[in-house]
């Protein structure tokens, strides 16, 4: 997914002279071509995230469209004030590419897990937050990012994820995508949990239950209209995210339902509880421990439907 993102930045740079790339001491991989072709628009900077956010703000104030890539935690937590003031208050077109969103860096421990990135980015006015589900979708996000107004945070998941998105369904930042439609239950997902939700829908179908899987790649602005439309057709709503339950996708769906007076629908959120996940191991193991699996999602859906 990171590869798709970085190669896309190079494509965009060829198209538009405003595009600049800024990295913070990251690997050369997938950047060599950009660096060779546009050395004056390529910046490999030090490990000072506060500074590079401000620097990108200055570049954007002066007509550039900076794409900034480093580790998601460093890009969100370390420089939160710079993101809020320098980028969002000024409404500048800076694109933050956060590597290792969620628990991708599971073996590296809690310092490296971006489990609250969506919540804290979503809390800032003018910010746009996108979590693509696979590398193909990452490419679509990137191509649209060029002309997107204001700052954009793009959560990069681990590499080599199964491709579940397709061009046929189209892609627009801010518009949730129904990946399949059913009449019994609505599964709302974002990022790579869309793969999990699709697998859960398969499991449910074995029990004769049909599920809608609504892939909410854009967490902000939130597509309340589609969430409400598909929720209205379902007997139960479940959300699943690789993120804390505090302020992420599940919160946004709950807010949407309550605000619209639709809070009565049976509803369950899957995500990380309000703890530091300390287990190490792999992303899959951590997600498994906290029930972010297709089996658990399908089981929870059946429980809700049988109530």
């Amino acid at each position, binding site marked *: 997914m990171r590869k798709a993102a970085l190669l896309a930045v190079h494509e965009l740079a060829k198209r538009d002279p405003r595009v*600049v790339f800024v990295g913070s001491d990251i690997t050369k991989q997938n950047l060599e071509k950009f660096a060779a072709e546009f050395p*004056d*628009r390529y*910046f490999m*900077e*030090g490990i*000072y995230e*506060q*500074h*590079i*956010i*401000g*620097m*990108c*703000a*200055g*570049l*954007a*104030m*002066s*007509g*550039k469209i900076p794409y900034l890539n480093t580790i998601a935690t460093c890009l969100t937590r370390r420089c939160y*004030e*710079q993101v809020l*003031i*320098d980028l969002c*208050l*000024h*409404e500048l077109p800076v694109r933050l590419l956060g590597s290792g969103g969620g628990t991708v860096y599971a073996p590296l421990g809690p310092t490296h897990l971006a489990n609250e990135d969506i919540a804290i980015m979503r809390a800032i006015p003018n910010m746009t937050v996108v979590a693509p589900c696979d590398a193909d979708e990452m490419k679509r996000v990137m191509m649209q990012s060029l002309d997107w107004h204001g700052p954009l945070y793009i959560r990069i998941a681990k590499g080599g994820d199964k491709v579940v998105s397709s061009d046929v369904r189209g892609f627009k930042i801010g518009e949730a995508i129904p990946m399949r439609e059913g009449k019994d239950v609505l599964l709302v997902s974002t990022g790579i949990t869309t793969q999990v939700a699709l697998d859960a829908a398969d499991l449910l179908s074995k029990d004769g239950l049909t599920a809608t899987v609504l892939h909410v790649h854009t967490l902000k602005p939130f597509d309340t209209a589609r969430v409400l439309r598909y929720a209205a057709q379902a007997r139960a709503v479940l959300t699943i995210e690789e993120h804390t339950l505090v302020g992420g996708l599940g919160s946004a769906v709950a807010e949407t339902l309550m605000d619209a007076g639709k809070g009565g629908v049976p509803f369950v959120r899957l995500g990380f509880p309000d703890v530091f996940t300390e287990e190490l191991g792999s992303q899959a193991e951590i997600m498994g421990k906290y029930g972010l699996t297709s089996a658990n999602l399908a089981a929870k859906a059946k429980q809700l439907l049988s109530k």
Partner: protein
Amino acid sequence: MEQRALIDSRGKDHRRLILQMLVGSGRGHVGAALSVMEIVRVLYDDILRVNPQNPQWPERDRFIFSKGHGCLALYVMLAEKGFFPKDELMRSCHFGSRLGGHPESRKTPGVEASTGALGHGLSIGVGCALAARIDKKDWRTFVLIGDGESNEGSVWEAALSAGKHRLANLTVLVDYNKFQSYGPSKDIQDLEPFADKWRSFGFAVREVDGHDVPTLRETLLATPFDAAKPSVLICHTVKGKGFKTTEHNADWHHKAKVKPEELQALLQELEVAL
């Protein structure tokens, strides 16, 4: 370096305005504004290439007022140059005003960046200077920071980066009044050897009496001090400069609800030469 220069009559006019704004607005960071008044004046009089009729003119020089709390001085000069009507000065901070307790670029014509959280402006300035370089433009970037502000690590992150990129189109002005919010910097976080710090980060350094208008002008006209380095001008100033009561007085860092008799006494102080 000592600060010895006297305040001239225009400097006194500016200070009267700052006091009036303080009363009109109900509050303000007086000490910080009085400290930078001459720096800001010389920038707008003699250095910055700006166009008050077209604040967004793409070829303008960028001035990032990083120590945002000192904005009363900035507003005085912006109004004087015609970026907005002078009568707006007296309503700053009020509901619906375009002038806030900290400068905001999306509200106030002529303000380049929204500042107030210390330690942001120099990084923004580095980005502006890099953009000018990419585009091969000759507009320049100036950033005004405080000495207390220079406690922030982000200032030194930006300094590292400016040095690395050899941004000769970037000039940093430090308001070195050796005072911050609580009191004297030496009691809080001494910065000495300050000039050496900047030098070691790759800057060409000069020092000046920050209230000495002719010397400030002459020195700033000589920027860049080195054709291959960013410049820093360390301006030795007095926090609260111009009134005996406010100089080096932490009570006047931020002041609200100034009483009429206090105002009168201050205006009197201004009459006696300082």
